[in-house]
């Protein structure tokens, strides 16, 4: 378990102070995939580096399995880092080493005997699907392959925690999908705790169990992925989620639909896991006898189930009060746009 208690980190430059992380408290459970989302500059990069001590806290505690890592000596911290692996946006492999040597690198630091470390590295390379690339240099690999090497390198010491710093942000959508699948499989197979920071809500939605949303150094919202996607409370969260739902940003979509349907009522209906499998909309429309027109619909599958967002249009002369009431009765979130 990783517990962050009132963690603060401030950077001082010549004439200003930047509060990168401000009073953050989080609990990340064992074996879960925890996402930290936010726009760039929200402090998530700093936060993830505090967890393995690459950055030092100014105040607060970071307790990993009952041990406050902020109080560790440099030597003990280095030891501890062998349990907390990390992967990066730009992979950060050593170009001077082959794939196999890169994967064996942490074992070399841990002073594992040469034959043993090469054997382990080879085994790990097979796990990530690079058995035919063992002796090539990273420069001849694709982005996805490089990230696989980085993942193998991170896992070769059997860590308990894997930190992912925008691990898929430099990859194309297809490769991102593959890497996320790999991370998900690793999480299941090795019972690894994964902490990932990203600005892509899709990434979080696909593999995270819980997430925290950051803005200006603070955690503004933290819950299960399901709860956040169905009922986001903070404006930043809403903005981030709607980018996922529609592929375009929310304000733009609402505006477009409003332009297209200037008269009448435009509603945004959000279904969660519980009710997305029932024909609620049909039943409600039949009951109150209001003709509805679906103008935009989107269903996303998350770790815990489906999530649907739908825009419906109803003509001016119709009374929507009854409709709203019935939908609310079915625990469907309705907003008038």
């Amino acid at each position: 378990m990783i517990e962050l208690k009132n963690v603060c980190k401030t950077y001082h430059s010549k004439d200003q102070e930047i509060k990168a992380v401000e009073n953050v408290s989080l609990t990340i459970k064992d074996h879960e995939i925890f996402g930290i989302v936010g726009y760039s500059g929200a402090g998530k990069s700093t936060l993830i580096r505090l967890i393995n001590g690459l950055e030092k806290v100014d105040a607060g505690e970071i307790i990993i399995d009952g041990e406050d890592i902020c109080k560790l000596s440099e030597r003990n911290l280095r030891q501890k880092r062998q349990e907390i692996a990390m992967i990066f946006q730009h992979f950060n492999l050593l170009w001077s080493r082959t794939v196999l040597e890169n994967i064996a690198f942490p074992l070399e630091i841990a002073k594992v005997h040469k034959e043993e470390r090469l054997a382990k590295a080879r085994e790990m390379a097979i796990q990530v699907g690079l058995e035919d690339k063992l002796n090539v240099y990273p420069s001849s690999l694709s982005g996805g392959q490089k990230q696989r090497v980085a993942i193998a390198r991170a896992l070769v010491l059997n860590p308990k925690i894997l930190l992912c710093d925008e691990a898929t942000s430099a990859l194309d959508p297809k490769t991102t999908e593959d890497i996320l699948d790999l991370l998900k499989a690793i999480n299941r197979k090795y019972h690894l705790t994964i902490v990932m920071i990203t600005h892509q809500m899709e990434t979080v939605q696909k593999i995270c169990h819980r997430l925290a949303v950051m803005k200006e150094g603070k955690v503004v919202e933290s819950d299960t992925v399901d709860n956040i996607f169905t009922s986001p409370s903070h404006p930043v969260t809403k903005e981030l989620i709607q980018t996922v739902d529609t592929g375009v940003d929310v304000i733009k979509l609402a505006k477009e639909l409003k332009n297209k349907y200037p008269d009448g009522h435009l509603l945004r209906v959000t279904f969660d896991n519980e009710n997305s499998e029932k024909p609620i909309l049909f039943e409600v429309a039949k009951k109150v006898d209001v003709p509805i027109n679906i103008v935009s619909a989107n269903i996303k599958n998350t770790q815990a189930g489906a999530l649907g967002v739908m825009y419906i249009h109803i003509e001016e002369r119709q009374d929507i009060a009854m409709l709203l009431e019935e939908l609310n009765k079915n625990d469907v979130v309705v907003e008038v746009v």
Partner: protein
Amino acid sequence: MLEELNYLIEPLYETLFLTFVPLILAVILGALIGTIIFISGDNGILDVEEKSFLKTVHVVFDALVNIFRSVPYLILLIWLLPITRFLVGSTIGTNAAVPSLTLSATPFFARMVVIAFTEVDKGTIEASKALGAGTLDIIFKVLIPESLPALISSIAVTAINLVSYSTMAGAIGAGGLGFEAYQYGLIRQDPPRMLMATGIIIVIVFIIQIVGDVLSKYVDKR
């Protein structure tokens, strides 16, 4: 014809000696000083409580490198005469030129080392730290291998500098091709012999540069 060239064998040997002995010493010392300057800099490789001590070390070594790089070689040669007498037992001859040539090449190579290390990807250093690497791991397993092409080029450039400085070491009777060329050219007014000595210097410089380029390219897997 070939016998005519016999007079150049001794100076050739002296030039090679005055290039490679100081080169080996300067590479060792320069790498050490360059590494000290780099890791004491503001890049988080050394995690120590006492930041001000680190800063002092950085500033002092940086300043020393700058000072000794700005002193003209001939002046350095004179400055070092007492130390040379102590180290070599004499202030004239080929051996006596070694300390001053070393001292002139060391700060130059140290600076090249700092530049080469600075070019190493910060992300790679950070990743190594995240994987549990200590300072020595970072120096020997990351900084040196990842900057090897630049380091090899730097060694070649330093060697070429030494070839040219060795001419001035002739002032204390160190000999060498450069001084031979100077003597035949200026003192004895014998242009063919001067050109011959110069030609061999050019060939040496070319060989050093080509070997440096080839090796540098060979180790570069980027």
